[in-house]
């Protein structure tokens, strides 16, 4: 289904763009040494990934290491990923703070050849295309549209069990719609997963495909 694409926006560049629209992204950083990664962790659990166009399915390619907090584990993980990455040049090694628990959703964007930018909300994670519990709207969306996107999901009571979470997701959808409208060059977008946790949310993985 998914094809390789070289027009992908650099991860940290995408993070900057999201931040410009006040969209939360989990703490993320490129590292060039094991020490860098240890310093980033500072005792907290982290995730370490190799980013490369040649390894789009990071989990399948074995280039993701989860839940690292001890310095020796971080160092070992770095060595391993560094070695694997030599076949995946050009590459970058990314570390992120690890969020434990929470509910995963997807918010995405696409460009319809006739009607332009569209925004998608769904029950997220790796099974998003299996469950296909998603709703779609054409951008720009209104508050009504955003609420109705949430309400039309079978999983609405899981992802938005109360007014606060409903409003939070609504605001997030409005921000993503705005970003899609103001950045013509983003032809496809996956924020998947966005993890809802502790009354807030963080985008964890992201994929920005740039148009011609």
């Amino acid at each position, binding site marked *: 289904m998914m094809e390789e694409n070289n027009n992908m926006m650099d991860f940290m560049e995408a993070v900057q763009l999201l931040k410009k629209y006040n969209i939360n992204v989990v703490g993320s950083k490129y590292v060039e040494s094991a020490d860098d990664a240890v310093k980033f962790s500072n005792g907290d659990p982290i995730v370490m990934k190799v980013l490369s166009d040649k390894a789009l399915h990071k989990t399948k390619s074995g280039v993701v290491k989860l839940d690292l907090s001890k310095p020796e584990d971080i160092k070992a993980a770095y060595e391993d990923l560094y070695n694997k990455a030599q076949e995946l040049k050009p590459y970058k090694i990314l570390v992120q703070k690890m969020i434990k628990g929470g509910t995963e959703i997807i918010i995405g964007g696409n460009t319809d050849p*006739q009607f332009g930018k569209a925004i998608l909300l769904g029950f997220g994670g790796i099974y*998003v*295309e299996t469950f296909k519990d998603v709703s779609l709207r054409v951008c720009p969306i209104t508050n009504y549209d955003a609420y109705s996107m949430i309400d039309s999901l079978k999983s609405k009571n899981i992802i938005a069990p109360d007014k606060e979470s409903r409003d939070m997701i609504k605001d997030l959808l409005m921000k993503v719609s705005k970003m899609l409208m103001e950045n013509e060059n983003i032809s496809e977008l996956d924020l998947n997963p966005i993890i809802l946790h502790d009354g807030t949310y963080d985008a964890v993985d992201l994929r920005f495909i740039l148009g011609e």
Partner: protein
Amino acid sequence: MSKSIGIMMNPKSVAVIGASPDPDKVGYSILKNYLDLHYKGKLYPINLKEDSILGLKAYKSILDVPEQVDTAVIAVPAPITPEVLDECGRAKVRSVVVVTAGYAEVGNIELENKLVSTAKKYNLPVLGPNCVGVMDLKTGVDTLFLPSYKFDRPDEGSLGFVSQSGSVAGTILDLIGGEDIGLSKFISYGNASVIDETDILNYLIDDDDTKVLIIYLEGAKKSKEFIDVAKRIGKKKPIIIAKGGATAAGSKAAHSHTASMAGNYQIYEAIFEQAGFIQSNDLDEMMGMAKFFDKQPLPNGNRVGLITNGGGTGVLATDSIYRNGLSLADLTDSSKEYLRKVMPPIVNIRTPLDIGGDADYTRFNEAIKTVVNDDNVDIVAIIALFQTPGADSRVAQAIGNYASICKKPMVVISEGGSYTAMHKKIIEGSGIPVYSSPEMAAKVMAAAVKYSEFRKNSEN
């Protein structure tokens, strides 16, 4: 363009180009339709050979007609249509309907382009080609070439109908004709070569005769303008839509999860959702929705006051009600108190209110009266099974009596054979829609609740 559609629907004069004395020809049916509907304007048959058709003086060419014609209906073979259209341009015809087929829809792009360029040259508003045209029973306009004995022509009313396809159009008009629904305007537009769906919606948005609209659409020609008019009309009147072409064709390879789940069909669904359109999957559902929205007010909430004279059907209906996001109303204490007094002891005073298989019209009447006036009820739903000993025409009459009294929407669920069909007619004649399945009734009620919410909230 929308102004030109207005002319087509109420022309002072009509020329039928390709009019024929042969009852098997399209050009005969069209002319005959205008006569049958007692069209009040001038009619000009155009035919190269005949001097008169159906008692009307015929002309060799539109250019010979002594006045500027409001509408020309073109029903000549496809290859000569550009020429005929050019004559219409020179004769300064105000609007044109081309019913002839054989253009882009069969791959004859060149001929279609010729037609479009001729229309552009004279700035001619052209409906079609490859369509069955327009119908307005109030003004006696009917370009449909379907032999009238083969289908039930609808009565005059407030339901508008727009169809890309001619065959779907014939079927739905026939179905409308068979129901107690009246038609305001019908427009079929075929290849949408000049006048397209956006123009038609722009016309219907301000058409006061059309209170509810049903649309059969395969795709929209315009993009942003279509979304814009869809959003405006959805806020003004209920729009019931069926979209053909559910399978995405020609979609490009996706690079993301999102793109793989956001095909062309889903985009249309999204637009309809944002415009508050009521989406139906087939013509059956479309008609079920149409007969509700045509006659019933919008509900203020989703609490259904369900009355039944059959236990099992009551259970099925309850399932359907909850499955579609509705809920059963809990009647007020005063309602319950009253019902306890008037109902026999076998009747359990709770919803669904099962008034028993032996319920006659007086028991129905007491139950309906109570539920209709109960503040906890937003929609009144009555299951009336006419196979039961107590149910007869007086029950149908008792239900029908509330059509004009009840300020809340009402639906009836009634399934059965010919005896039931007869009573269904009585009830529907009063304006209350009858459904043969609880699921369809629940779907319709849920659509009404959703549309009502949309009208209340979409401005924010």
